[in-house]
């Protein structure tokens, strides 16, 4: 799909706004709700997530054709990286998109989470270039 710069801004802007609204109404931006999910004290968010995967799976595997490549490669960083991410998610209640939605909702301390994510992404890019250098499946 070849989109002009303007189309990219328009579509990503519209999509991001709707995604922010949806995540807010689901409660994925509420530390208390996310914490309850990880403790299995409340299965609502867990079922939401599993249901979303099943719904998307139905479309991707049976109803849609000519999908873009999934581009997810298994590499030495997959497991250690995911362990670190899980620790961070449990502590902050934020994954990379959620932190911004939380800030928009007026949860002021999440500005620290956002700075933290920015620093973490920057640090990984430096580290990867110097030490890891495995094929992560993208030029990013």
């Amino acid at each position: 799909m070849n989109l002009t710069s303007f189309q990219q801004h328009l579509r990503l802007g519209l999509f991001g706004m709707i995604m922010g609204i949806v995540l807010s109404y689901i409660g994925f931006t509420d530390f208390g709700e996310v914490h309850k999910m990880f403790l299995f004290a409340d299965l609502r968010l867990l079922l939401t997530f599993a249901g979303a995967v099943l719904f998307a799976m139905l479309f991707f595997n049976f109803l849609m054709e000519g999908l873009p490549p999934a581009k997810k490669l298994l590499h030495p960083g997959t497991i250690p990286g995911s362990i670190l991410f899980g620790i961070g998610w449990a502590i902050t209640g934020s994954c990379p998109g959620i932190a911004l939605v939380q800030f928009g909702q007026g949860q002021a301390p999440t500005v620290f989470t956002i700075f933290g994510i920015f620093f973490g992404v920057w640090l990984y890019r430096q580290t990867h270039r110097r030490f890891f250098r495995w094929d992560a499946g993208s030029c990013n």
Partner: protein
Amino acid sequence: MTEYWSWWQGALALGGLTVVFVLMLGRMLGVSGSWASIVGWREARRRENTAAAFHAQPAVMQNALLAATLAEFGEQQTAQAMAGQGLTPSVSAPKRIQAASGLRWTAQLTFLLAMMLGGFLATIASGHFEVRFDLGSVHARLFGSDWRAWITLLVGGALVGFGTQMGGGCTSGHGLSGTSRLAPASLLATATFFGSAVVISFILEGYAK
């Protein structure tokens, strides 16, 4: 907000978004990839400019590719390989080459800022907008609500940033997009980050008691 959608309403909306993103942008949804382009904006901009130059002059790219192939494999091997496909190593065939157009890093920034706006609009619409200096009662019980809690957010955020880049994706890229495509790396990553979050959450509860 206190009243959230039921699980099936949320599942339809979140699953629907995962599908709609592909229809709107022609690629899989993944927020940590957007972070990578924004943080590495210099590199992203250089790549965009190079792609634009090649896109404007396909013959330049074809020649550059051929020159690189010749340098790597030598003239004879290249000629053989190309003859096998009914091609000859001509350096000036002005064939149109479709340059893959990535999403611009500025558009990725729009994406993240729009998510922020979405959060704002949702709380305004439900009449619950307020600037708060804590993350709710559960977070305050576990971490307090002073500067020490802010330090944990900074450190936790750094783990989120570093971990998602190292693991090659986050809740959206691995968890929603990759898992629904049954990509092995995504299934493994999702099980891993969910598992480690569960362990840490139980440890946090243990300490708070």
